[in-house]
């Protein structure tokens, strides 16, 4: 392992021209467990969001207090992009191929809502919203530059964050461009079109940089083909592309579809980053729902591979190594795009290399991440009622009576899911996996009986029938059972695009996350007991942590503001 790391480090140095010491991302840092910096979407490649930092811990959390806050101003009408309290306005760099008329700004715009993970590298923070990217000083939040992309359109629902390679940043835009920025100045180096807007692709994802590959997944709510693409970080040229569904007759997965046309346009978009195992060189990522999502007849009776699956892709070749389908023949638009969590931990008496995921359909899985061997299936949402049990492969068997019904079928969970894309966390201290969840019901009405089905997400009407609660849920990976749940008191249903909260655990024996009341809360990861909180109004982004000048910060976004906390 050590030799491998050295080798990768050396390779990466050769491949990374123009590294600026002290500011650029040292590629070796990407292979380290999460500690001082936060150089990629999940902090490290494992997806655990578990920090080794201990300066802030259970014994002193009561002294955690505001270190700084900073507010962004999104859009084109706001030169400077930050309110620096009298300091000189930060430079705004404008790019893009649109006219600017469709760019959003103002307090209610999604471009003013930070849901992205925030990179911390070399004392600087890098983060993004649709069409916008910023750099800020990690010591006080002062905005250093603001980049705005003039959009041509596309769904502006959110942006999950930036990728970094050396001194370069990568941003996906809603109108499907990959934009490469200079991290020091925010100036654009190049941009490449990822997919045509006319086919209704849209991009919200955070690019993931592995070695000299920039991995990019897109979104699409029509029926356009789904793919993961590796780009050259220096030139933006395509290295390889993996399709989530069969695109020609040679693909063995074709037998799980009615025909090639159905397969080609069968969906499976990877709109949330995966995790990476350097030893096997496997990028493990969740695929999205099949399409048409609800009126599934045109897809045939098969499993519709590789939609709603965990797939392991060799990062050098772009070839599929293994898959495990978490929702065979999904009929409720329950993407399996949740962040998989890679864990080395004991299982049945021996140490195993595991991958854990809790998917939108209410099910929890533990697999072997080298082979994809199924180990555990459980339910983290006890109300999930769409299955007829679990088969010998460990997969839930769908109950077609709960697909939808002209007169209405009562289904749990709602389309928003028992969980959604907000990242979970895993603490090796407790051996528990944490995720925010909901026990919810909706009536699903079939509105389109045309055997051709509807396109995309059409063909059904979903009406809320009630929520039995929203929870911070701790799962035992060994049994697939709930270890404990903390119910958020009387909280209303999640829904829309903001289902739950992104979590963080630390070696300080702390578990952080937003709550529905607008608080940032620290819990005891062993019991769920509340240790500390602060009201921020609306915690929109992940809780994160980094260490700078000997001081540990806890960082979180609340709509258009960043808040950093440190010990008094």
């Amino acid at each position: 392992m050590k030799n491998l790391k050295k080798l990768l480090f050396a390779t990466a140095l050769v491949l990374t021209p123009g590294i600026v010491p002290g500011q650029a991302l040292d590629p070796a840092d990407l292979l380290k467990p999460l500690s001082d910096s936060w150089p990629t979407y999940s902090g490290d490649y494992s997806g655990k969001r578990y920090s080794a930092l201990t300066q802030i811990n259970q014994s002193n959390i009561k002294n955690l207090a505001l270190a700084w806050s900073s507010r962004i101003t999104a859009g084109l009408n706001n030169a400077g992009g930050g309110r620096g309290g009298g300091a000189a306005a930060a430079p705004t760099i404008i790019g893009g191929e649109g006219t600017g008329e469709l760019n959003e700004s103002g307090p209610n715009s999604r471009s003013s809502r930070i849901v992205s993970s925030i990179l911390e590298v070399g004392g600087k923070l890098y983060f993004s919203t649709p069409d916008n990217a910023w750099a800020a000083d990690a010591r006080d939040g002062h905005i250093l530059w603001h980049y705005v992309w003039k959009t041509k359109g596309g769904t502006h629902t959110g942006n999950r964050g930036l990728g970094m390679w050396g001194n370069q940043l990568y941003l996906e835009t809603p109108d499907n461009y990959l934009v490469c920025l200079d991290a020091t100045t925010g100036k654009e180096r190049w941009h490449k079109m990822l997919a045509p807007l006319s086919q209704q692709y849209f991009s919200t994802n955070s690019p993931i940089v592995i070695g000299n590959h920039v991995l990019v997944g897109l979104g699409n709510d029509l029926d356009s083909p789904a793919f993961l693409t590796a780009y050259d970080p220096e030139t933006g040229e395509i290295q390889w592309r993996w399709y989530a569904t069969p695109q020609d007759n040679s693909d063995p997965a074709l037998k799980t579809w009615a025909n090639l046309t159905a397969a080609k346009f069968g969906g499976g978009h990877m709109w949330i980053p995966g995790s990476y195992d350097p030893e096997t060189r496997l990028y493990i990522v969740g695929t999205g729902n099949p399409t048409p999502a609800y009126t599934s007849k045109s897809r045939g009776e098969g499993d519709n591979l590789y939609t709603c699956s965990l797939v392991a892709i060799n990062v050098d070749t772009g070839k599929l190594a293994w898959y495990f389908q978490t929702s065979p023949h999904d009929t409720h638009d329950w993407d399996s795009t949740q962040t998989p969590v890679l864990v080395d931990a004991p299982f049945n008496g021996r140490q195993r290399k595991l991958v854990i995921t809790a998917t939108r359909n209410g099910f929890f899985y533990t697999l072997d991440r080298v082979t994809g061997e199924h180990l555990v299936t459980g339910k983290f949402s006890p109300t999930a009622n769409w299955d007829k049990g679990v088969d010998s492969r460990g997969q839930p068997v769908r109950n077609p009576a709960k697909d939808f019904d002209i007169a209405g079928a009562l289904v749990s969970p709602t389309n928003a899911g028992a969980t959604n894309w907000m990242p979970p966390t895993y603490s090796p201290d407790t051996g528990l996996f944490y995720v925010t969840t909901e026990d919810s019901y909706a009536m699903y009405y079939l509105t389109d009986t045309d055997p051709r089905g509807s396109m995309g997400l059409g063909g059904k009407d979903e009406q809320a029938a009630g929520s039995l609660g929203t929870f911070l849920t701790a799962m035992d990976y060994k049994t697939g059972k709930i270890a404990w749940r903390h119910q958020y008191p009387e909280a209303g249903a999640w829904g829309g695009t903001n289902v739950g909260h992104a979590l963080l655990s630390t070696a300080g024996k702390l578990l952080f996350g937003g709550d529905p009341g607008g608080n940032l809360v620290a819990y005891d990861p062993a019991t769920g007991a509340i240790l500390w909180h602060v009201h921020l109004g609306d915690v929109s982004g992940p809780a994160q942590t980094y260490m700078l000048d000997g001081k540990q910060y806890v960082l979180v976004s609340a709509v258009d503001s960043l808040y950093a906390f440190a010990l008094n």
Partner: protein
Amino acid sequence: MLPGAGACRLRTRALLPILIVIVAQVAGQATAQAQTRTRGNAAGIPQGAIDTRLPSDPAQVERGKALYGVRCTFCHGADARGGEGGPNLVRSGLVLNDVKGELIAPVLQNGRPEMGMPKFDLTSTQVSDIASFLHTFRAAGRDPARNAPPNVLVGDAKAGQAYFNAKCASCHSVTGDLKGLGSKIADPKTLQQTWLMPGAGRGASAATNVPPKTVTVTVSAAQKFEGRLDRIDDFTVTLVDAGGTSRTFIRNGSTPAVEVHDPLRPHKDLLPTYTDKDIHDVTAYLASVK
């Protein structure tokens, strides 16, 4: 059917050739979805004010399409037939009744936070543009089943009555609080959503009066406060008492003792126990309560 609907349909037909020409000019790729629209139908969808709409300005439709793509597509779908969480807008009574954005504007500008609909900062021109685009979608399709409201009345009213007597009658009576319910809520789907979870779903609360959650905060044996629950999380609880006074208490674990009374608790407790047949049966029964 509302008074005057027949006349509306006649006049709609007279407009068809004009609409076809206009739409053909602007539709481009969207030709398939932009055929002529007919407003409303015979089965309960509100009749729209089609006749007061002027023919669409192609440039305005294009502007509306672009705005819609950015603001609305994710939730409501590119074809306005429903997306990630948002309802089908083509069949929406509000959209059907809208002429040039006057009904859509308040929804866009205020949002519907209880349904997860955010508010949007849009000028009245932009709202009109979006409305103009929305109105290019047909509100009827080739397949009658695609346009007809679902047939929700498939249950066995007798079985529904038995279920009602066993599970609902301890709180409700069809000669008391639910008297004439099937007449008050004529649309069976709305009726079904309303009895299943009053106040949830769309349009479900029209004929119901759901009492608010209340809360009892016990500070000490001598100090007890009761009132309507205003807000609560793990750290704070706010109630409004009978005199209209708002009181906020800091929560520290189980101190003070907080007891929330949710009038819909029995409805929630039933959710995991229903079969779909139970639901359809009860709907059939309540629809017969005229």
